[in-house]
């Protein structure tokens, strides 16, 4: 029979060790870094490629060389206030582009709008230049307009007519809603689980490899109680971090609907992960092997879970946006039973090791 008092004593000892070594601070720093990294990736990149962002740099006009015949495209380009269009001879235009006196050159073919053939436009930009990116984004919009006009002219030739849906009002800019709720929140909430799972392996294998286990065993605690204490410590730090994340997110104005349910889901799913890690650690008794097997196994498990509909991660996303189906309780029950099964497994593994 497991002595619960001994288990809590060991868990407390491990928690004290964690705070003394300040590793928990490193862990939180790490999570902050990952969050920052992913947000910068999204926000920074989108800002970089978002033409409206550059449009705000007021008064800047990009020079565009236009070669070839007058077409509707020339009007469309000239209408854009951020572009300055020059009608030029193609050779001069490309020469000027190479000398950076222009930002781009547009040269349409002489095909008439209602011809059999498509209109081909040559678009010259400067290689390896960030401004080419901006110009391409700007010109793309105009070309899309032009495409729409041409398509309208050739409308009668289409044999399948599309269903039309007209938005009643436009949406501005890019939104990060889906990124925040659909990616960042699950990532942040499951990071403590991954960290704790790695931690439990370290805590268990260290006792074996540093040969400190024998000393511990000379106390009344059994191997099972020691391992359980370590598992408990690793589980205990999860809700703290999760609540911290949720709090930080809400502080940033990100509304999260069902906090309690999310917390429960994360804790049970994380417990399952930690139990797997502990089982591997007790089995191998050596850090490198255990970490290696566990990380590979984690990738397999996570990929598999994500491929299933109504998986816990998906449910957390739905709980955060508000509007999860009631079946999420059933999934939570499944997580709990997975934990119970894993508890039995680890118990058997421990007993096998203890009497080996």
């Amino acid at each position, binding site marked *: 029979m497991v002595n619960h008092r001994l288990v809590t004593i060991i868990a407390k000892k491990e928690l004290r060790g964690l705070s003394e070594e300040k590793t928990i601070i490193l862990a939180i720093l790490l999570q902050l870094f990952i969050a920052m990294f992913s947000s910068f990736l999204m926000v920074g990149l989108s800002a970089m490629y978002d033409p409206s962002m550059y449009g705000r740099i007021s008064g800047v006009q990009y020079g565009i060389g236009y070669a070839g015949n007058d077409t509707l495209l020339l009007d469309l380009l000239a209408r854009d206030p951020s572009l300055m269009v020059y009608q*030029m001879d193609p050779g001069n235009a490309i020469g000027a582009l190479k000398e950076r006196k222009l930002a781009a050159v547009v040269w349409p073919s002489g095909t008439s709008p209602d011809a059999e053939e498509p209109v081909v436009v040559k678009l010259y930009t400067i290689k390896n230049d960030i401004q080419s990116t901006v110009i391409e984004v700007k010109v793309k919009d105009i070309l899309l307009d*032009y495409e729409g006009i041409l398509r309208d002219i050739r409308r009668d030739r*289409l044999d399948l007519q599309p*269903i039309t849906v007209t938005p009643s009002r436009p949406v501005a800019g890019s939104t990060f809603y889906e990124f925040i709720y659909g990616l960042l929140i699950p990532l942040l909430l499951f990071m403590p689980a991954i960290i704790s799972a790695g931690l439990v392996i370290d805590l268990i294998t260290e006792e074996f490899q540093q040969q400190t286990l024998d000393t511990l065993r000379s106390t009344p605690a059994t191997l099972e109680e020691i391992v359980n204490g370590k598992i408990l410590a690793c589980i205990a730090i999860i809700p703290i971090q999760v609540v911290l994340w949720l709090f930080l997110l809400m502080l940033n104005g990100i509304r999260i609907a069902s906090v309690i349910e999310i917390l429960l889901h994360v804790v049970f799913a994380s417990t399952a992960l930690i139990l797997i890690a502990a089982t591997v650690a007790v089995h191998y008794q050596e850090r490198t092997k255990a970490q290696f097997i566990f990380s590979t196994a984690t990738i397999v498990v996570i990929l598999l879970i994500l491929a299933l509909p109504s998986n816990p991660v998906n449910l957390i996303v739905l709980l955060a946006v508000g509007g999860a*189906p009631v079946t999420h309780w059933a999934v939570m029950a499944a997580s709990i039973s997975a934990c119970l099964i894993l508890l039995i497994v680890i118990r058997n593994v421990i007993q096998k090791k203890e009497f080996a």
Partner: protein
Amino acid sequence: MESLHQLLTIAIWEIKRFQGSMTRDLLPIAAILFILLILVSGFTAQQGIHLQDGIYRIGVDSQKYFNIIGGDMRYQVYALPPDIQNIRTLGLDLAIRTESLLRTNDDKGSAAQKSFERDYQAYLDTLYRHQNDLYAAYPLWIDTESVVSELDFLATQSGRQLASPYQASNTLPVPENPEKDIVAPSGVDSYNMDDLRLQLEQEAARGEDQLGRYTDILQQQEALGELRVPSMLSPPLPFDTIIFIFIFIFPLYFTSQFFMMSIMNERTLRQGEALIASPVRPAIVVFGKMLPYALGMILIVTIILLMVGAGISAIFPLIPVILFFLSFALFIGMISRSYKELSFISIFFSTVATSYLFFPSIFANVHVVSLLSPVTLVIHVMDGTGYTLTDYVYSTSLFFLTSFILFGFCIRNFHEEQLFTEKGITETIALFLGTMVSTRYWFLSLVLITIMTIPFVFMAQMMYLVLFFNLPMPFSLILIMFLAALTEELAKSAGLIGLITHRYPALSWRIVLLSALLIALGFILGEKLLLFVTLSQISDSVFGAALFLSIGLLWIPFLLHAGTTLCSGIALKIGGRRFLPVGIMIATVIHCLYNMYLLQGWIW
């Protein structure tokens, strides 16, 4: 010859030990897991990732809209009751009523509309692709060509054009050399309609990945034909890069973990005592133990490169990365007290290193900052551009320098006292720094320690540059400036810490002043040296000015560095090591104020 023999002996021992640890109970499970991994990734690829299922609720008044949203799992579709006014009361985010799209007024509503519009575009594209007359559906094709500018690279690549794009004027620009060799846009004779249709299909298939969903402006693009429709014109964002980095980093990370553990194991239970007591030099022990892992990493990387069909010249940029990982593995293995410390530091290090490698390379072909990462060179080899020797020096020198310095630092400390210490990390690092101070030539040691920190400072500053350069202009500059100043002050305190750990000479006021001057000298020397060798391109931009103070006369920065170091030194002298952070903060503030004064033209 003797040393080579010793080196090989230790390497062979290491291999034997590694084989011994890969016992019979590990390999079968590893093999099973590997097979499972392949099976599961196949399964997941087929099933799709169910992460955002049902995140939006949409109401429709007709079945026909299933054609548009049918396959998109993000929607829960409801039948819309007739004559509704407020869709919000029904708990919906979107509704389509008589061909018009309504949404709620919040973030979720606009996000839902955005993703619906993307789906609608995909639907239109599919429909247009299947038109008999493709040229009626796609009447406009774009032939993009990028020309190489003959003007000096420098002005455009330093990030400057972000703030000040060239302004078009009312006068017609006249080139000095008009281009002669040009081809007029032709029709589509050389293209067959079916080929173009196929190309559109391929593009559509490629756009269906999960990553592309998050924003409509990021789309991957490569290996297309020369003609595109306007909607395919998008900035070249190499999503493959992301995958590649992880393909390269993952094995490097794991192999360096093995090396780290091997070093750590020498320390646990003082197992390495025999090795250290033997007449073999520490450098031989370290490199002997490292050799198998280094060769293994090179082997793995070569195999990956051959598998993806890249040129073998792509291996050279990866060698400094391998050295970098190994040197940090050695360092981490030597300083951590426990396994959990080892795990956290190594995970933290690899996350930072991965982002350092990964972030710049996203901008491959877009911005010169991309060259900070050696991985960009790998991408250039793969897309056929190749790299020049200058590129190579530019992007790898910091990696080479930091790894060599770190190896030297660790080997110098590969002794009993430092290896078997039970102290915490900061204490251990202080102990290591103390070893670097020579009792007789302590003044020289101070200069050298400071010079050694320079590549690390640069690397950290490059990291800030990479992370923050695309923030809005004044913020990016101020943030970079503050972090850069903090890093420099931290680096300069290394010498002071070494001095007080060494305990000779005792820290008198005279010594404090003298060491401040020496450290400033070392810093200026190292900075100039490194700037001269490598980074002139970045240092010439305004960001460079924020980072490196390279403008102005030399004695002003010297005085600044001496003054700020003096702040840290005084704090150290008054309050001991506990007060050092206070001193560093004061020094940082002074440093920032000075930088702001220099850069005021850019900020205000």
